């Protein structure tokens, strides 16, 4: 009976939560659309170069709908998206969907790998720090976390390349053969991306673990005579990880941001690098499409995290959540 009640509540919650993402997405399309048009050089001039005649510029503007009023451009773009057409890249004169399709496996693998790396290292460091609270191990874990948070990824990337790829020859120096696979090309960049995220996860796991370990149910579990191992992993960690999982999901856009720099340094043709190229080339159509896709992925990931929550921890009050 209770389970059925929870189940129906959960369904309602999921639907409501999903509907709530729609205005977020619309807002994202508007921001992406306006950002690329807010000042700066004329895209027609920029793409066609200094020797282009007025006629050529005009023709370019007409071809790409730049001569229309802004709201019409926005309408055209949105209706294109609803038909599944992202448009043609101004810089490369290729369908944007083709360009993105080629890069999705690369970027997804890179991000996936860096998430695995950051979760494994971050959570282990966090647990160690909490269990060996105020010992040299804890301090060491804290220092390493602080260190990786303070290091800019372009610097870490260059150093990693030099050290592990050039001097030690353990990994290839940049590049990726494209498509799924080629993981050994992605390990170094995934570490560069992941080590920063790991630092955040470690700090969070440590504090979350510390607070959980002081809770009454842990104390009672201990007094029940359960093994230390069981108390920590079954009762402690499971509860301590809830905020950590949220943070990982919330950090997805941040990872995309990091991927822009990392992909550039490691010469990986991923979505981040494409976005950066688009920004520099004022390829407004490509940038707005990429921003939209990244936003969609993030929103969906957050939605999944929220839904996952309701399963991991049934105590979450769905009614309150809805409000």
């Amino acid at each position, binding site marked *: 009976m209770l389970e059925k009640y929870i189940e129906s509540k959960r369904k309602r919650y999921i639907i409501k939560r999903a509907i709530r993402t729609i205005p977020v997405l619309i807002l994202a399309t508007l921001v992406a659309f306006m950002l690329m048009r807010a000042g700066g*050089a004329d895209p027609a001039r920029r793409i066609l170069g200094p020797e282009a005649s007025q006629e050529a510029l005009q023709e370019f503007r007409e071809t790409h709908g730049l001569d229309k009023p802004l709201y019409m451009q926005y309408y055209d773009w949105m209706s294109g998206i609803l038909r599944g057409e992202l448009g043609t890249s101004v810089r490369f004169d290729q369908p944007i969907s083709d360009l993105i399709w080629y890069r999705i496996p690369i970027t997804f693998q890179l991000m996936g790998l860096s998430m695995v790396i950051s979760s494994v290292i971050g959570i282990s460091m966090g647990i160690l720090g909490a269990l060996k609270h105020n010992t040299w191990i804890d301090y060491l874990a804290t220092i390493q976390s602080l260190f990786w948070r303070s290091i800019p990824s372009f610097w870490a990337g260059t150093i990693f390349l030099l050290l592990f790829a050039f001097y030690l020859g353990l990994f290839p120096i940049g590049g990726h053969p494209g498509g799924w696979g080629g993981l050994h090309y992605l390990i170094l960049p995934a570490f560069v991306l992941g080590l920063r995220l790991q630092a955040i996860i470690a700090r969070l796991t440590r504090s979350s673990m510390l607070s959980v370990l002081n809770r009454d149910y842990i104390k009672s579990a201990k007094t029940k005579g359960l093994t230390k191992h069981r108390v920590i992993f079954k009762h402690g960690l499971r509860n301590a990880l809830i905020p950590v999982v949220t943070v990982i999901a919330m950090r997805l856009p941040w990872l995309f941001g990091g991927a822009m720099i990392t992909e550039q340094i490691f010469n990986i043709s991923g979505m981040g690098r*494409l976005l950066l190229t688009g920004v520099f080339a004022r390829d407004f159509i490509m940038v707005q499409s990429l921003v939209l896709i990244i936003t969609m992925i993030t929103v969906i990931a957050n939605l999944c995290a929220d839904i996952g929550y309701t399963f991991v921890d049934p105590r979450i009050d769905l009614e309150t959540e809805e409000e």
Partner: protein
Amino acid sequence: MAVAGLTGCIEEEDEYYLETTLYLDDRHTDAMTVVQEQAREAGIDLELRVMEWGDFLEAVEEGEPAISYGGWSGSPSAADILSPYMPGAGFHWWGGFYENDDFTDLVKEAQRTPDDEERWEKYREAQEMLIEEDMGVFVTDILRVGRAYHETLEIPDEPWDSLHGPLEVLHQWELEEEETLEIAQMREPDIFCPIEHGDVPSQYSLMRIYESLVSTYPEGEPTTEADDAVAESYEISDDGLLYTFEIEEGIHFHNGDELTAEDVEFTINTMMMGEDETEEYQDMYDVEENPISPRDADFDAVDYVEATEEYTLEMHMEEVDAEIFQKGGFVDMTIVPKDYIEENGWEDFQDEQIGSGPFEFSHYEIGDELVLERNEDYRHEVNIPEVTYDFYDEESTIITALRAGDVHFTVTVSGDNYLDLQDEDQVITNAYQTTQHNRLAFNHEKEPFDDVNVRKALAYALDVEEIIKARGVEELYQNQRSPILEAHPTHHDELPQYEQDIEMAEELLEEAGYTR
């Protein structure tokens, strides 16, 4: 946002005679900071307005700055290099709006002068005029491009001073072990089309897929000796109005079609078609969606071309053009297969890229790599089986890969990295001259540089050697009094010079009506 141009004549108590804004793009900040310091000593306060490249282009084109710093690179033709200083030329605004009918006439006349010595004399006179009146050219520095390659690669010595450097003879390169040659490129092709391309990054690969009628390598002199020239010989009539080319028999395109005079005729006709000639072109050939040639003006002196026999092509001129072989139309000529294009259309051809050069097009993954394969039937030996052009955003990654031998050749290396690589045992560096020259360009329509005395004052205020030193790598820059590159037959060493003379600068400013 700073307001462009002159802020006016300054009141007495001010430190400077005048203040104005110097526009530049972000690559030249170091050198222009030195210009700023030197100019201030002579009482000219230049506020630096550092802009991103695209914004800079737009501002200059709209005539916003009274003074700007930028570069221009033309084909090896002297008339082309001087074209920014002539109204009506596409890049006139780029030369700083210098207008002088005598100068324009002189350059045009030089271009029509077949005799080398006479032509040389006319170009000297024109450049003297430019230096006396514009002064912008005075602070010219010529850019040399630094290149580096790994020791496992063997590159023939000679072509370092040609237009595309050693890439001109890519098929003669050798790798220690037969494998894929990796070339690193910082910029990706803009327009990967044999007719429409105008950007060097496209040419690095396109010019290896296609061949030209004559080659301008080495040193801008036309020759049929080079491997990639399809003409066996050519003759020019005494009046300079008829060119007859004999084309080598037995040259084949990558699809097996034989290359004949008709293909060359078709190619030149396509290259002669600018924006306004699309209809005319489509009447001539039954091809839809023809490309728009950016080089139509290079053929202005040409009346028509005609394949008179299977291997004979005639080019009839309306007027003499002594430099036609050095213009982009000939230097960047890429002969395309007429039959294939007529049958399949330009769009299909664009995907296939069928030329007759030493390498065949394999594939191009935008943002990633462009791959060429050896043309097994090429009439000269091609040593390397596969060439990959890798596109990078980060030069330090190229340098690391180059040191490790993952990249064999990099088409450009910037100053600091060039210096570092010189100390590396396994990397060989070399710099070669380009047609690019950077200079201060004065806007003759805007105060204060509409006054020749003010332009001269700035010229006297500057010590060009110091400015070039500020670039960090002296080997890559050289102070030159003429925008025409040293290797070019019309280059002049002994043009008049302005030496730094602060007193003279101050006198000239006072003469122009400015007070301190």
